[in-house]
């Protein structure tokens, strides 16, 4: 800043700063005024500001700016006199303000007004002013000087109305009390230069508030640094006095402590700015967008006076603008669409901010179309962010959070339809960076709300000081929910699932991350200690530490650039005893151990890994029966539970369990005998509304292996086949065999009676995938003919059933087959769907050329079934 303006006189520098602020206000007020043309208060503000800018420009000698502002002023003057406020005129004035800003920017850089021609703009403004003037002349009888109080006032004080003021005799404005009024109430009779009353009025309104002083931001930053150091020194002194019993020291130290705290508060207050400052440009943006897009959008701003640290304000400014733009651009539907949906024609974007504890919550909500969750799910699978089955099991809230996933929004296809998403990942990164939390809630057709919770300040935070091993760490208090003392054998104890520590907390399993293990990269002993329950968004996890000391206000110092790459620390600080401690970044921990915290967290699978999913599968291995190890793909499992045996109920020969307020059928797997006492391990499988429990003897392990499944001829044995897992022959469970056992309604309840007329030819070279898909299709009531290669498919292709074609192994062969089938049918009578692990635009184009109806991701079971069942009625009619 300093460099840019060095060599320019102070006057000009001050002019730039002040004018910039004025213009921002004008921007905002004009938009408000357009919506509320009868509000003379707003108009008065605008006129005053524009006039001040004009006056100062003339004073300093900036002819170009003066001419522009003068022209804008005359148009605004017409509004004041009652001319109709129309969008064209407001746009022209706003354009003028933009031009003025451009000139100001150059002025700031070069120290002089740039060359340029504003004739066109000025002419436009003049024309607008003239039109408005004529309109006024038509609608109003000529002013009689005798009856018009203003004219009378003017005459009385000998003011000659200037050319521009001729149309600018504003009653409200001129009759406003100004400092010209003497103490006795008489008005000064000196002849005032044109425009002086306006300036007087401005001075008046200023003198109404407390006097203010402009201070360079750097000065305040420096002051803040000093105060931070002072806080540290105070803490050190306190620490020393705690160890010494020097009474003489106690009293002054107490005072020092209080004064330091007050000073800290005071300096923080200086840095605080109303959040409205970050919003000032939004009304204009929304206005421009709505006229551009032909939408009607109302922007409501609540809590604009909520104060925030300047540094944070700067950081969230752009994300906020971005999100509001998103709302206006994508979320709010065009008026016709809104009307058709039974909503008010004008959409509303609501921005609200309020204090909550030591943080500020900002909400951006709209009453638009909401997120297209189905599409988000599909896209998440396509982009390989999570396996299909996992995405499918996610709640809507969890699925919506994919919009924050890095790169999720870059694909243009999503954003066009689902609306939100352009750069939401960037927004999240920004919010994360300041230790904030972001979440989204959306109701289809009713709108979306994004909630951001950010700390008041970054400079000084409250932190919990904990110890792990020899070392102390600070955990920001804002993310800490509670502390739980854990001890082996006690009520709260840490248990292990395949080495991964978990804690039972109020009927929920909380994943635990052992801080010491994280630090040393070795498995730490899980015995006694404290679990710091941490919440980020809706994700909860525990950080296990050895001991907890106290909460301390710490001054956050940034990590050295050499250490900034370590994700688990967000900074460091100096404690009262002079020791440097590292500040743990819970966001970083959550990301680092992402897999362990997977309780609903979108995972970062690279697309390449998705492609490999074809061979690599995560399996849940369990024991069922005395000598039988079985496995089921983990993706199909909803939950693992241990239930006391006496909770089971037997009804009509079936075992039932009251599970989460519902009766859930329980089926033993293989030779498992459902226990009559103790705890019974259950594997919970759910699909939509239906849930069932598979009783097993014991959960053994979760393995991630390349499976070489040897298929079994007899599918009815409840196994698809067997594979060697960890050196042991393991049966792969055929869920389709068990599902109807648990709930006979499973099949019929699913797809409206399960009309099994539709035959499906499944062409899938991978035996394992084929066997996984067949039960799924069968369960949906479809008759399936599996084929391992294109040749055998060709032999079985008679009939008019749908064809599912694998495109991964031999795309050309598959396309050739599709073309043959189309030719044989003589039309599009038959449904042909291509299956692939990874959809690319090229493949999609090729598939369309080959006459395929659709191309889908292999693992997207839900979409696949939807596609097949939707197509069936059409087929029947055609047949």
């Amino acid at each position, binding site marked *: 800043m300093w460099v840019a303006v060095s060599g320019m006189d102070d006057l000009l520098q001050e002019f730039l700063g002040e004018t910039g602020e004025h213009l921002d206000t004008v921007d905002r007020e004009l938009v408000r005024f357009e919506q509320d043309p009868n509000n003379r208060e707003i108009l008065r503000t605008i006129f005053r500001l524009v006039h001040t800018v004009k006056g100062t420009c003339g004073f300093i000698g900036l002819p170009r700016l003066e001419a522009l502002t003068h022209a804008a002023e005359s148009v605004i003057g017409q509004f004041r006199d009652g001319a109709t406020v129309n969008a064209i005129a407001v746009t022209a004035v706003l354009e003028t303000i933009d031009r003025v800003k451009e000139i100001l920017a150059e002025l700031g850089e070069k120290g002089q007004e740039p060359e340029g021609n504003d004739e066109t703009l000025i002419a436009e403004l003049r024309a607008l002013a003239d039109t408005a003037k004529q309109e006024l002349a038509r609608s109003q009888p000529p002013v009689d000087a005798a009856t018009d109080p203003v004219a009378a006032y003017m005459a009385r004080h000998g003011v000659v109305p200037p050319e521009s003021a001729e149309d600018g005799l504003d009653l409200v404005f001129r009759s406003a009390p100004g400092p010209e009024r003497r103490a006795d109430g008489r008005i000064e009779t000196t002849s005032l230069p044109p425009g002086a009353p306006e300036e007087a009025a401005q001075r008046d309104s200023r003198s109404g508030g407390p006097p203010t002083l402009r201070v360079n931001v750097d000065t305040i930053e*420096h002051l803040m*640094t000093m105060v931070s*150091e002072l806080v*540290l*020194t105070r803490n050190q002194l306190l620490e020393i006095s705690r160890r010494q019993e020097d009474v003489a020291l106690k009293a002054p130290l107490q005072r020092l402590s209080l004064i330091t705290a007050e000073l800290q508060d005071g300096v923080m207050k200086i840095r605080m700015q109303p959040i409205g400052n970050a919003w000032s440009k939004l009304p204009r943006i929304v206005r421009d967008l709505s006229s551009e897009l032909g939408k009607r959008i109302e922007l409501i701003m609540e809590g604009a006076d909520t104060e925030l640290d300047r540094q944070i304000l700067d950081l969230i400014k752009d994300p906020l603008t971005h999100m509001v733009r998103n709302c206006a651009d994508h979320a709010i539907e065009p008026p016709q669409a809104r009307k058709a949906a039974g909503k008010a024609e004008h959409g509303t974007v609501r921005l609200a901010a309020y204090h909550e504890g030591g943080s500020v919550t900002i909400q951006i909500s709209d009453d638009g179309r909401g997120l297209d969750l189905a599409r988000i799910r599909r896209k998440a699978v396509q982009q390989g962010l999570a396996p299909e089955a996992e995405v499918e099991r996610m709640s809507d809230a969890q699925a919506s959070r994919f919009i924050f996933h890095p790169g999720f929004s870059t694909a243009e296809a999503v954003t066009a339809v689902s609306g939100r998403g352009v750069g939401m990942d960037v927004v999240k990164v920004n919010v994360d960076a300041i230790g904030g939390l972001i979440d989204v809630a959306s109701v289809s057709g009713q709108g979306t709300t994004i909630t951001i919770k950010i700390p008041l300040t970054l400079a000084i935070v409250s932190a919990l000081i904990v110890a792990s091993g020899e*070392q102390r760490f600070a955990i920001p208090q804002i993310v800490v929910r509670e502390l739980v003392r854990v001890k082996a054998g006690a009520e709260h104890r840490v248990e292990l699932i395949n080495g991964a520590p978990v804690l039972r907390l109020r009927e929920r399993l909380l994943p635990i991350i052992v801080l010491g293990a*994280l*630090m*040393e*990269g070795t498995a730490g002993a899980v015995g006694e200690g404290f679990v710091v329950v941490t919440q980020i968004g809706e994700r909860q996890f525990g950080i296990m530490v050895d001991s907890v000391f106290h909460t301390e206000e710490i001054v956050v*110092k940034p990590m*050295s*650039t*050499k*250490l900034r790459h*370590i994700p*688990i*620390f967000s900074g*460091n*600080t*100096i404690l009262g005893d*002079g*020791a*440097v*401690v*590292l500040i743990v970044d819970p966001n970083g921990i959550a990301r680092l151990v992402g897999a362990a915290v997977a309780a609903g967290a979108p995972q970062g699978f690279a697309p390449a890994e998705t492609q490999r999913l074809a061979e690599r599968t995560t399996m849940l291995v369990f024991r069922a029966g005395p000598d039988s190890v079985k496995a089921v793909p983990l993706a199909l499992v909803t939950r693992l539970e241990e239930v006391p045996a006496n909770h089971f109920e037997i009804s009509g020969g079936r075992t039932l369990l009251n599970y989460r307020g519902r009766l859930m059928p329980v089926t033993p797997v293989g030779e498992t005998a459902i226990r009559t006492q103790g705890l019974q391990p259950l594997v919970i499988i759910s699909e939509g509304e239906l849930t069932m429990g598979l009783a097993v003897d014991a959960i053994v392990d979760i393995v991630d292996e390349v499976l070489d499944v040897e298929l079994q001829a007899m599918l009815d044995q409840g196994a698809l086949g067997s594979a060697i897992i960890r050196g042991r022959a393991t049966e792969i469970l055929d869920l389709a065999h068990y599902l109807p056992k648990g709930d006979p309604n499973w099949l019929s309840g699913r797809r409206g009676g399960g009309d099994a007329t539709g035959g499906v030819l499944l062409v899938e070279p991978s035996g394992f995938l084929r066997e996984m898909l067949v039960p799924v299709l069968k369960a949906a009531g479809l008759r399936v003919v599996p084929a391992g290669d294109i040749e055998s498919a060709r032999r079985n292709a008679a009939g008019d059933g749908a064809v599912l074609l694998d495109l991964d192994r031999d795309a050309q062969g598959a396309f050739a087959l599709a073309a043959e089938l189309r030719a044989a049918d003589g039309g599009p009578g038959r449904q042909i769907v291509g299956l692939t692990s990874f959809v690319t635009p090229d493949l999609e184009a090729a598939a369309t050329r080959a006459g395929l109806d659709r191309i889908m991701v292999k693992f997207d079971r839900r979409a696949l079934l939807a596609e097949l069942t939707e197509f069936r009625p059409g087929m029947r009619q055609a047949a």
Partner: protein
Amino acid sequence: MSRNATSEAMSGIVGGEAQAGFGDSLDYVTVTIGEQLLGLPISRVHDVFIATRITPVPRAPAEIVGLLNLRGKVVTAICLRKRLGRFVDLSSHCNESCELTAVGIDHAGEAYALIVDAVGEVMRLDRSSFEPTPVHLDRSWSALAAGVHRLEERLLVVLDIDAVLNIGMPAAA
């Protein structure tokens, strides 16, 4: 953080005129790692101090010993011995009352401390005794050395401080 002016005392070893005194002579703060004498350009050395309490940083690069508090400033401590690919005796590292000799350096607005075996005197050496780094030096050394001064009794390897602080650069690797 504000960068303190370099007027801060350098623990009595650096004379006031040493800063500006260039020309045909070069000034170095000498330090030793094992038997080897090393020179740090005096203009880059901020101060010399004894580091007593260092907070190790888990997952940090091996050369980074940790963070220490120097008069209210957090300083990143780098082990020069390790940086030069020498063996580090763990017992010499912080136990209860260990004291490490550190050379304070400001680099790109941040404070660093180079942990050395010992700090020697300040030397003013003539340019004529300066030679480029011998070509056959070990890579971990040649990358960090700016040249060599021939002294009467021994050789002084001049360190390139920017290279030393550029952790992540191939050194011992």
